[in-house]
Each structure stands twice: as structure tokens, then as C-alpha cells.
């Protein structure tokens, strides 16, 4: 067993984990944060996307021990303390960017990372920037619309996690 210390959604955690435990397992099973979904389990679909030190990663392709010392944000950590939706969540809501919702947590986390990284985003940039995330329902159009709406309204978007409240 290996001792792992991580910050998840602003709270600090310490656990002894088996080295082979995947980060997604740690988040879902040890911490009970089941908002992060497992879709393909083969690094392809992006449903398990979380932020690791602010950057999107596929938590099914990362060991929990590799995340030792990192700050992680999951979909549960995006909204403000008062429960207000993060601007990307709000935009997904407004633009009807989900149907079954299975891809949505990963899609939102990937979008948050993309918006924080890219100074300017057009439709092509959004489509390419979300190429690591698959959606079987929406046909992507409304997802792209939602992210573009956020790109047009930049200021609060880079702020995630505990700072989400500032965005509301």
C-alpha cells in the first residue's frame, strides 16, 4: 500500500491505496464522488475527465498514486458553496447540451480546461478541443453552442472549484 495525499474539490484527503488503483476508482469508490463516470474504461470516451492541477485528464488512465500531491477538481467541485452552477454547467443547461447526461460530467470538465487554456475559441476550436470526449446522444451541436457561449463571456470561466461562487 502507498500513502496518497490529494486535494479534491478543495478538501484534503489522505489514504493508503493499492498502487494499481486507478484515480477514477479512488474518486468513485474511496471518496464516493460518483459524478465522474466510467464510460469506455479504455482512454477513449472522456466520460471520466477530471481536472488535475487545472488540466483535463482521463482518470481511468491515471493511477491514484500518480496523483499524489495534486489538486483535483471533479464535477462535484465546480458549483459554488451555495450550489450555484458553474458558468459552463449553466451554459449546458441553457443550451440543452445534454440528453442522457452520461457524457456530461466529463464533457463539462474538458470544456472548463479548454476554456482556461485557449485565449480565443471558434467553433472549430471547440470541436477539436473536445475531441477526447464522446457523446452518443446530442450530436454535439448544442454542446458546441454551450461552450462557445462561455467563450464569448470569458471572465469567470477560468475560475473553478472553490472559486466557482465568484462566477455566479
Amino acid at each position, binding site marked *: 500500500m502507498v500513502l496518497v495525499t490529494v486535494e479534491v474539490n478543495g478538501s484534503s484527503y489522505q489514504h493508503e491505496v493499492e498502487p494499481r488503483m*486507478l484515480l477514477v476508482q479512488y474518486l468513485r469508490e474511496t471518496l464516493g464522488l460518483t459524478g465522474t463516470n466510467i464510460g469506455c474504461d*479504455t482512454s477513449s470516451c472522456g466520460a471520466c475527465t477530471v481536472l*488535475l492541477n487545472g488540466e483535463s485528464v482521463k482518470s481511468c488512465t491515471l493511477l491514484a498514486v500518480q496523483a499524489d500531491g495534486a489538486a483535483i477538481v471533479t464535477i462535484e467541485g465546480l458549483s459554488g458553496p451555495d450550489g450555484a452552477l458553474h458558468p459552463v454547467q449553466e451554459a449546458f443547461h441553457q443550451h440543452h447540451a445534454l440528453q442522457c447526461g452520461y457524457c456530461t460530467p466529463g464533457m463539462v470538465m474538458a470544456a472548463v*480546461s479548454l476554456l482556461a487554456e485557449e485565449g480565443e475559441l471558434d467553433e472549430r476550436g471547440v470541436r477539436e478541443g473536445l475531441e*477526447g*470526449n464522446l457523446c452518443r446522444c446530442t450530436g454535439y451541436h448544442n454542446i458546441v453552442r454551450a461552450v462557445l457561449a462561455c467563450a464569448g463571456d470569458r471572465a469567470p470561466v477560468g475560475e473553478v472549484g472553490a472559486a466557482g461562487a465568484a462566477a455566479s
Partner: protein
Amino acid sequence: MIPAAFEYVRAESAEEAVALLVEHGDDAKLIAGGHSLLPLMKLRLATPTVLVDIGRVPGLSYIEERGDEIAIGALARHHDLETSAVLKEQVPLLAATAHQVGDPQVRHRGTLGGTLAHGDPASDLPAAVLALGGTLVAQGPNGRREISALEFFRGFLETALGADEVLVEIRVPKAAGAGWSFQKFNRRAQDWAIVGVAAVVNGTTGIALVNMGSTPLRATAVEEAVRSGASVTDAAAAASQGTDPPSDVNASSEYRRHLATVLVRRALEEASS
């Protein structure tokens, strides 16, 4: 899918990683970004019993100018390459190729050293380093040695690295102002190349092929044709000479040969325009 059990050790330096490889021998495997190794371990196609994590080794993620070359630490991630101002200016081929790898999540984790050491002929960056005529620096129990990219790829997932060596640095000649092109043909976003071509035209012409054999390959017949003044179309016709492309669900070997000719032509046109 959960990997088979293994012991996990984190190396704090390249020296320590080498010592751990020496200590654990064949049972040990290095892990950098883990984006080639972990998928294999989850499928239990790889079952190392000791995983030596070099992902945190400090000071191995640099991208810097050094004389006529750009030196890159083995832990520089694809994302570091695609966003590096110095690389975009001095070796745009490498920055642009990094941008074509996988998707943003993969590029946030995968490293240049990892993709080279993995030695997958379907990978993008090895072909770019090969076209540029790069130099790889390996550290082993007896210190460091340099390996030319031309000598590095030995067979399918096989490289010149010894079992007790760590790839620490990659150097490529500066090529600001040189013509270049990276052509990647795939059918879906995020996919691996069915065939790819990296080209740099800088007085001499370097062309390397993705997924046209058991290793990334230099298209030497095309390079010779260009040198002797052949037209782009005639030179590109030699693209599949000396290759042995695979047949798989995506493409037959015949189709890959055809693609290589088309993509080399496009690459030469783009690089010389």
C-alpha cells in the same frame, strides 16, 4: 479494468531510476505519463511487477535553445511541446506534430520521452524526430550516451535503449524558416494515423513515415529523388519503397502504400510552398 498487482516506486532523479532498473531487472518498467503503458497494463498485455515512476523527476521537462539545437527534457509533455513559443519558432514541425497527438487529455499526460521509448510505429512524434534527424540521450549505469534517431528504432516496440537505461533528453536541429509539413490521415478525430508523413525541407530534405512498417521509417528513396532534382510527383511515387505496411481493420497494406504516395506528395508540396 484493473492492472495486475505491482510494486510502486517513485524515482526522484534519473540516477535513482537507473539504480532501480538495475536492482529490479526485467521485472521493472518505467512509467512517465502512462498513456501507452497503463492501457496495456489494464488489458494485462503488460504485467510489470515493479513500476518505477519517473513522472515527478524534477528538471526533465525543459524545452530550450542550445547552440544550433533545441534540447528537450524527456518528460516534456505533448502539451508543453504544442504550446512552446521557442519550439513554434525554431522547430514548428515538432510543435505542430505534438498538437496532432490524441486529444487534449492525452497531451496533458503523454511525454516525448515516453512516446519515443515506446517505439510504436503508429505514433506521430517519433516520425517527426526521425525526419529532423534528432539525437536521443540515454542515461545508464555507466553514464550518458547519445543515439541518433536514425539508429534508435529497432523493431516493433523495440528501441536501442538498454533495459537499464532512461531516456533523458532529445535534441533536434533548429529549423526556423525551413519548410515543413505533418500529414496525418485518420478517419475519426483523436484516432491514430492510418498513415502519417513528417517532412522538413531545409537545404536537405528529411521525410519520415508513420505506420508504414514495424518502426517509424525514413523515406530514403523519396529523399534521394528530391536530391537528384525529381519533381514532387515523381519523388512521391517512391514513398512506399522499402516499407512493409501492416494490414488491419483500418486499411490494407496496399491502401497504405497508396496513402503514403499521396501524403508524401502533399507534404512535399506544403513544405516547399
